[in-house]
């Protein structure tokens, strides 16, 4: 199973090139939140993607659909467009006159978040239901409700990311949307690989997208004390994965996509092959304080063990690890223990490059952006320097990339987890030459 297309939109840029250059340059995509006034929030920071007009990414015939697109959907559409363009596959959305794929043989599998509605959009209807300054559900039923735009719900169903992309590019094969929060994209990419491997489709687009720059979503993370309240006046240093001064995560928005196909399919059409999906593994984190990772990182370790077994490699063959690395001290330490447990002695050699200090945590998109970053590192034989990990946290024995380095990456490991429990790992293989 190989990757032949890549797409990204992130706090570092509109596409793969800008995102990867940003990571290599140590740029930080985190800044003070501008999407809304964050002054009442304990974390006033966010990783916001650039502004863009979604119309320019859509075929003329589908431009009416923009009214049904939440920000999450827009981000996914942008990244999927790039992934198909890069792959050389011509879908209906790329060029309807020169389609070179069989739409019934294309699958889609995306990670999506719990999309929160736009409160500003809803506010006039809510206000009309509170004539005395107190919300009255009965008035909502006969007055407020009627003011809600008829297709309102369709903007917020998580499966609509895949539906819109499917309609734009004419994807008629299997479609799925994984909603496992911050680990969703890994699960989606793995499932897509299985769909293609089984022969249910020849091609799959897979990844994830989420826009966490929404007041409710952000406030939730503040309430859970997952978002940092430190460094609000120094955004670039706020998110510090595996660092002794880690104070919490920063949340953002983005999307990452890959195009997957069988090696034979890719070779037959002469496609450029970026990497091979060599193996994956999944498990659960189980602990009573389930907003956190269990302290010994067992669920992460099992996922990595399974992914290495699936790829049939030993830990010594892994040259690059992109961890989940939230910047939440207890979770980072637990994750480090899980990685150390799986890699054993090899952990001192595998270079660890956390991305969230620059990309922020983009929720359901984060795993896909990490896969994209790992593929770029393989292609460029370049591992960027970790940002904001100046003094490694006590107890963390990972080999964090202190400086950027030229290096041929044979195998890269990406891993992740989410509150609640699901864990995942993916092994990518360098197939240059």
């Amino acid at each position: 199973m190989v990757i032949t297309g890549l797409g990204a939109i992130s706090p570092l840029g509109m596409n793969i090139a800008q995102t990867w250059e940003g990571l290599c340059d140590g740029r930080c995509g985190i800044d003070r939140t501008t999407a809304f006034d964050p002054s009442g929030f304990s974390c006033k920071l966010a990783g916001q993607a650039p502004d863009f007009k979604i119309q320019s990414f859509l075929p003329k015939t589908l431009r009416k659909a923009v009214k049904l697109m939440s920000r999450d959907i827009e981000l996914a559409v942008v990244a999927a467009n790039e992934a198909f363009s890069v792959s050389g596959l011509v879908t209906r959305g790329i060029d309807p006159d020169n389609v070179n794929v069989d739409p019934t043989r294309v699958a889609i599998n995306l990670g999506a978040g719990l999309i929160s509605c736009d409160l500003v959009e809803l506010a006039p209807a809510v206000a009309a239901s509170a004539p005395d300054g107190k919300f009255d559900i009965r008035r909502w039923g006969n007055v407020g409700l009627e003011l809600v735009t008829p297709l309102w719900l369709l903007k917020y169903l998580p499966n609509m990311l895949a539906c819109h992309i499917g309609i734009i590019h004419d994807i008629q094969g299997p479609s799925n949307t994984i909603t496992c929060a911050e680990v969703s994209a890994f699960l989606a990419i793995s499932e897509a690989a299985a769909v293609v491997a089984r022969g249910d489709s020849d091609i799959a687009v897979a990844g994830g997208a989420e826009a966490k720059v929404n007041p409710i979503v952000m406030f939730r993370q503040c309430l859970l004390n997952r978002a940092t309240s430190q460094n609000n006046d120094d955004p670039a240093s706020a998110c510090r994965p595996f660092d002794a001064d880690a104070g919490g995560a920063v949340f953002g928005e983005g999307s990452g996509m890959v195009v997957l196909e069988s090696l034979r399919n890719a070779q037959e059409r002469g496609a450029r092959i970026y990497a091979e999906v060599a193996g994956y593994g999944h498990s659960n984190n189980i602990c009573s304080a389930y907003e956190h990772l269990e302290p010994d990182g067992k669920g992460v370790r099992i996922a990595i063990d399974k992914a290495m077994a699936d790829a049939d490699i030993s830990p010594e063959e892994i040259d690059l690890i992109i961890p989940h690395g939230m910047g939440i001290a207890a979770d980072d330490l637990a994750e480090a223990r899980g990685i150390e447990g799986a890699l054993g002695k090899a952990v001192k050699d595998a270079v660890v490059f956390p991305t969230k200090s620059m990309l922020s945590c983009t929720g359901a998109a984060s795993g896909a952006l990490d896969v994209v970053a790992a593929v770029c590192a393989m292609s460029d034989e370049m591992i960027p320097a970790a940002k904001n990990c100046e003094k490694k946290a006590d107890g963390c024995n990972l080999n964090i990339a202190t400086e950027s380095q030229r290096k041929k990456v044979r195998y890269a490991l990406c891993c992740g987890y989410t509150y609640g429990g699901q864990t995942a790992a993916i092994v990518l293989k360098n197939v240059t030459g």
Partner: protein
Amino acid sequence: MAERVVITGLGIVCPLGHDVETVWEAMLAGKSGLATTTIFDASTFPSTFCGEVKNYDFAKHTNNPELHMHGNRGTRFVIGAAVQACRQAGIDVETDQPRDNIERERLGIYLGAGEGSVKSDVFFGAIVKAWDADKNEMDWRKWTEVAQSGMEPMHELEQEPNMPAAHVAMLTGARGPTRSCLTACAASTHAIAAATEMLRRGDADVMIAGGAHSMIHPLGVTGFNRLTALSTRNESPETALRPFSASRDGFVIGEGAAIVVLESLSSAKKRGVEILAEVIGYGSSSDAFRVTDMHEEGRGAIAAIRLALADAGIAPSEVDYISTHGTGTAENDSIETKAIKAVFGENAGRIPASSVKSMLGHLIGAAGVAELITCVMAIRDNIVPPTINLDDPDPDLDLDYVPNEARPMQVNIAVNESFGFGGQNNVVIIKRHQGY
């Protein structure tokens, strides 16, 4: 050779009851689980009724209710459904030392699960306080003041759709592959299909698969009412959901959880557990048409049914029963009928095709597996459940929808269809398992 996949446990919590036998008996008697909404005051909404789970106490199913007390309605339902299904399949729950002969790293979970609901008073109250109608903007400082005092951290966390799966993992100690998907009304049928594939591929020996969802909250009902997808026969909830009838006017939201234990045949044999049925095939497709409508000719639905038949290696004539998606909307029932005719040809009129949604309501993410469970029971008892409220058939819809009364008949192979908003189509086929 891929592993064969069998069903070894069933569990359900839904508007017709809190266990499989009770629900099945009610269905065969043609009872409706729909009634006036009580969870919130819906008296002025266009639809004032729904299918609620009533008098259910999740704490009866667990020794550790505190661990699950923040769970959303779907999570609470899934605890009951999962515990029942695990018990039937001989899977030990809530123990560090299971004796069920299943390695925890080989025990996975796949749910089609929905989001929790916001606390309405806080959600709406914060907007009221913060909205400046003159400026047409929100004062986010004011909003945070209300949010800070009203939003509870764990309640917020539990709104995430991955949380029901997380609680099932805590109950069972499952350390195998675990996913949760949300492809609208097709979600839990997708979960069955994908979990089947994981067992075939050898990623796990046992998968706890199913769905959990409740959209019975003000925003959920608002959303579907604005789409004009819901029945508004408020005067008569029990007869409101009328799939395939001329007077059908939409679906009715239900809620609940449904779980099946899927297991590789070799694991089931090794453990010596009773095999309830075999999953012999699945099919999955997308309409790629419109986010608002199904493809007019049922292109995606047809593809999914055909793929499932091909995967199962059976001819259309071998199918004994079809559990339809049958939502009771004008569009679904007519396009689904077209799709069944296109695939089954001359057999279409002969194969009974009923909609148990007429009794359960539409469990959204959990609907597909609730319906799959009825297929398993139909095979066990050789009787198919009816489509109730079908006393004025739509003259354009001419399949055998099993109107109003359950029908005893030999059932060996059953097809379960689910079609999600936006065009995801999933079909699963199960078969009577004979001997070992």
